[in-house]
C-alpha cells in the first residue's frame, strides 16, 4: 500500500476503534464474517504503557497502563487487524473484520457507506454535543467601569 492508502486505513481503523461498541455491532450486522474467515490471532487483552509529556510538550514519562484488546482475522486474501482500548473482545473482532473487508475494493464502498459514515457522524455528533455543553459553562466576565 502507498502512503495515502496507509493514511486512509489508519483513519478507518481509528474510527472503528473509537466507535461505541453497540453502534459498531449494529452497523456491522449486515457484514457477518464469512465462513472462510480465519482468526489468525483470537481476541487477546493486554496492556500498553501510556506515555505523557512533562509540561504537556516536554520529554516523555510513563503515566500508567491502559487495557487494549487486539485481534487479527483473515478473510479471503485480506488480513484485518484491530487494536481497541478496553477489554471488549467483540468490539475488537468486529473492527478487525471491518478492516479486512474495507481492504477489498469490491466491498469497500458498501462498508464505507453503511459502517464508516454512520460511525463518523455519530462520533462528530457526540463530540460536538459534549463541546457545546462545556461551552455553556464558559465564564463571561462583566467588568464594571469605575469613574467616567
Amino acid at each position: 500500500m502507498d502512503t495515502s492508502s496507509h493514511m486512509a486505513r489508519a483513519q478507518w481503523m481509528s474510527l472503528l476503534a473509537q466507535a461505541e461498541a453497540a453502534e459498531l455491532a449494529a452497523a456491522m450486522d449486515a457484514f457477518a464474517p464469512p465462513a472462510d474467515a480465519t482468526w489468525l490471532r483470537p481476541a487477546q487483552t493486554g496492556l500498553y504503557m501510556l506515555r505523557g509529556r512533562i509540561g504537556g510538550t516536554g520529554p516523555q514519562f510513563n503515566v500508567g497502563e491502559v487495557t487494549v484488546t487486539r485481534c487479527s482475522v483473515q478473510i479471503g486474501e485480506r488480513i484485518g487487524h484491530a487494536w481497541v482500548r478496553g477489554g471488549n473482545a467483540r468490539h475488537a473482532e468486529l473492527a478487525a473484520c471491518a478492516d479486512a473487508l474495507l481492504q477489498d475494493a469490491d466491498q469497500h464502498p458498501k462498508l464505507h457507506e453503511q459502517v464508516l459514515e454512520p460511525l463518523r457522524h455519530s462520533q462528530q455528533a457526540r463530540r460536538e454535543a459534549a463541546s457545546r455543553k462545556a461551552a455553556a459553562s464558559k465564564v463571561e466576565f462583566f467588568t464594571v467601569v469605575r469613574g467616567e
Partner: protein
Amino acid sequence: MYVAVKGGEQAIARSLELLAEARRGDPATAELELAQIRQQLRLGVARVMQEGSLYDEELAALAIRQAAGDMLEAIFLLRAYRTTLPRFGYTEALDTTRMRVRRRISGTFKDVPGGQVLGPTYDYTQRLLEFGPTVPIATVEAEVPLAEAMPRVLDLLDAEALIERIDAGADPEPVDLTRKPLMFPANRATRLQNLSRGDEGFLLGMAYSTQRGYAESHPFAGEIRMGEVDVLVCPEELGFAIEIGSITLTECQMINQFHGGNGVPPQFTRGYGLGMGESERKAMSMALVDRALRCDELGEPAYAPAQNQEFVLSHSDNVEASGFVQHLKLPHYVDFQAELSLLRTLSAQHVRHASDRHQAVPEQALEESQA
C-alpha cells in the same frame, strides 16, 4: 524451639464467608451493577485507575465493588490483576494540547484565549447534603462549541520568555518503574511516573506542606484542563500509528517563582501534574510536589520533606505502604517471644541491681559519714 505454624484453615474459610456476607449486605437490596459504579461513582473509579496505574473503568468498578468501597484495597486488586496481562508496548505520547476540553480554568489570567470553562465541578456547590432523590437535569448546549484545540495558558508567558522553556529535546526513552526498580537520584520523568501512581492523600499532604512554608515556591494554578485525549499506538504489524480510543485526563500546569542565577534570568518555573479521569486534586498535588522535587536542578536550598526525593518517592505508593503497615498483623510470634524473653531477663536484672543498690547504699553512707 518450633511453634505451630499450621492450622486456622477452617477459621480462614469462615472469615472469607463472613467477608462475602458483609460485602453483599442485605440480599433483599439489589447488588450494585458495574455500570452504576462506573457512572455514579466515576471519581472513585478515576482514583482507582490512577493509583492502580491501569486505565480501565470496567475493571476499576469491579475492584471497587469487590473491595466494598475500600479504595486502597481496590487499587491493590487492580495492581495485582495488571500483572496477569501481557504488555503489548508503549503508546505514542499523549497530546494534551489537542484535548477535547470539558473543563479548563486558569488562576493566573482572567481573560485567557479560549475562555474559562467550568465544566462539571464541585467547586461551586454549597457542600450541603441534598436529601431526597436526585432530579434529572436538562443541560444546556451553547450555540458555538469550544475551540478544537485550546491554546495553552503558559504559552502566553512563554511568548514573553518569562517562563522556562520546555520542549522534548532529544526525547529520551524514560525509565519504566514497572520494569526497573526506583534508583536515586531519580530524574524528573521517573519521579513523575512514581507520583502518577502515588497516593492522593500522601501527595496532597506533601503539596500542602510546601504551601505552608516547607519549600515555599509561590505556586499559581496556571492552567487546569480536563477532557478527552486520543490514545495512539504504532503496532509493528502496521508500521503506522492508529487511534485505539480516547481516555479522560486532567492536566495541571503550575507556575512557580524562581529567582534565577548562574546565568539564568529570573523567570517562572513549571510544575506538572497529569491524572487519569477527573482528578483535579491529585493533578494539582502532583504538580506542586513535582516542582518541590526540582530543588537540586534549580539550585534551591533543600531542607523540607517534600524536596527529599528519597522520602517522597519511597513513601508515595499506597500499595507498598499499606502492605508494610498491615504486615504487622502477620504472626510475629517467634520474634515477639524473643523480645519477651529478653525483656524478662532485663527486668529480672533490673530488680536484682535495684536490691543490690538498696543494700549497698547504707554501707556507702556509713563510709562517707566516717570519712
